[in-house]
């Protein structure tokens, strides 16, 4: 059960049950993400001041990993510039796709998702929100998918 406990840590279960920033933002940028095979579907909203994210939020439904990841992400990118958020995504992506025994980068609260690396088929769940965030930042209309 130990890798399962790594995956479904209390913090993740908590963000799944009570997702943070779970709302729409009117008048900002938004983009949709959809993984039809799993049924994960979300919308990411951003409010920008220049290229700084002043507010990030999301809505939708999906598995615990995709929801917790979206919830943690919206907390993590608030106050960052778009370039900083993008750099964080790179590091996050590296963390969830690294070899199981590779050291885990210090990524603050996002580190709780490091357990995903033991479940390669779940990487797409953990990264859906981030890919959607990137689309929202670039004001892209198309629905994003990580499947």
């Amino acid at each position: 059960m130990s890798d399962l406990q790594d995956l479904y840590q209390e913090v993740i279960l908590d963000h799944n049950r009570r997702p943070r920033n779970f709302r729409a933002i009117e008048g900002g940028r938004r983009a949709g993400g959809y993984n039809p095979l799993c049924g994960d579907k979300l919308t990411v909203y951003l409010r920008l001041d220049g290229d700084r994210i002043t507010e990030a939020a999301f809505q939708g439904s999906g598995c615990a990993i995709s929801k917790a990841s979206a919830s943690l992400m919206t907390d993590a990118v608030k106050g960052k510039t778009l370039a900083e958020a993008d750099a964080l995504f790179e590091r996050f992506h590296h963390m969830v796709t690294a070899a199981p025994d590779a050291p885990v980068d210090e990524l603050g609260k996002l580190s709780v998702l490091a357990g995903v690396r033991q479940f390669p088929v779940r990487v797409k769940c953990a990264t859906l929100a981030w890919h959607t965030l990137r689309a929202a930042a670039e004001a892209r209309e198309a629905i994003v998918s990580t499947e």
Partner: protein
Amino acid sequence: MSKVIAASPRLGAAGVTAIRRDFRALHQLVHGKPLVYLDNAATTQKPQVVIDRVARYYALENANIHRGVHALSERATDAYERARASVQRFIHAAEPHEILFVRGTTEAINLIAQTYGRTHIGAGDEIVISTMEHHSNIVPWQMLCEQTGARLRVVPITDAGELRLDEYERILSDRTRLVSIVHVSNALGTINPVDQIVRLAHARGVPVVLDGAQAVAHMSVDVQALDCDFYAFSGHKVLGPTGIGVLYGKTSFLEAMPPYQGGGDMIRSVSFERTHYNVLPYKFEAGTPHIAGAIGLATAIEYLTAVGLDRVAAYEQELLAYGTDALSRIQGLRLSGTASHKAGILSFVIDGIHPHDIGTILDREGVAIRTGHHCCQPLMDRLGVPATTRASLALYTTREDIDALRTAVENAREVFA
């Protein structure tokens, strides 16, 4: 297969234990736990006789068919044609040439759409399917509709997952040119009243296609008694190899249809001015077919026939009842598909836990199930869920497998409690 099972009228625990010995895949550890394989609707495991038969073909009998005068070619041709005869007996078709070997159910339905459909269905005509169809019985018809200007009509279902026969009758009209319905739903387990479906369509002179992908491994099928005009299934869901499947068609239909693909074997004579097509079934089997697959499929069918499909069906019904009861005891669990006439499929959702998370947790317990939309997105929309978790049974499934499923699901609930 041992004598034990051959003798007993009922498939009991001893018979199933003997059957399980024939399936090596079932006896392995996954994540350190004994494998509990409950994804039979996706594909079944293969008994050793099938694996051995395919290996023997490649090791000793490999040759192209219908072409060589040499001994191996003759033997391969003979084995391939005997495989066709096995399939004919299996589904009780009138003639061996009514059995076409294709890649699987998907190709079978595409074949009908692009041959029969392209020549018999036109603008304003209607094709009738149902809400519970697999994408492979939706998309080929949508493509045909785009090509011809025909229209797709969809028979709705009840909340229990049963076909609305009243609506079906209402939808059938002068414009209906074809009905194509799933025999057993892969996502709900519903066994559709196919005899009635056929009768009502025939009363209006409308031919019927049945998607038998989930039926043939679990019940005895008689295409002549059903009187359906086409019947499709996949070898890999009936203990056979992947890449081989069957399209049954009544002679009169197959004769009136143009070929599907052009190439070798499907012609009688070719000149640049004119090509004469071959007789049935070769008209529809262009190119070198999946010879090993057909031979392996025949072996699978013979294996299943030796066990006895009626015994398999009765056994799986007992298991289904046991599984339905076991899962119903889990708090917050809701079964999707509670038709009164059902095959061994247990599709469910649990309040507050996404199927994908259940799938991951079950996998770590060695329990292989499927989560997702099961290639039935319109059905998921109808059920109002993004996905379900599905356990599907086979003749080698045991009560212990169901118990393991239940325990694993309870564990998942604890993780998310």
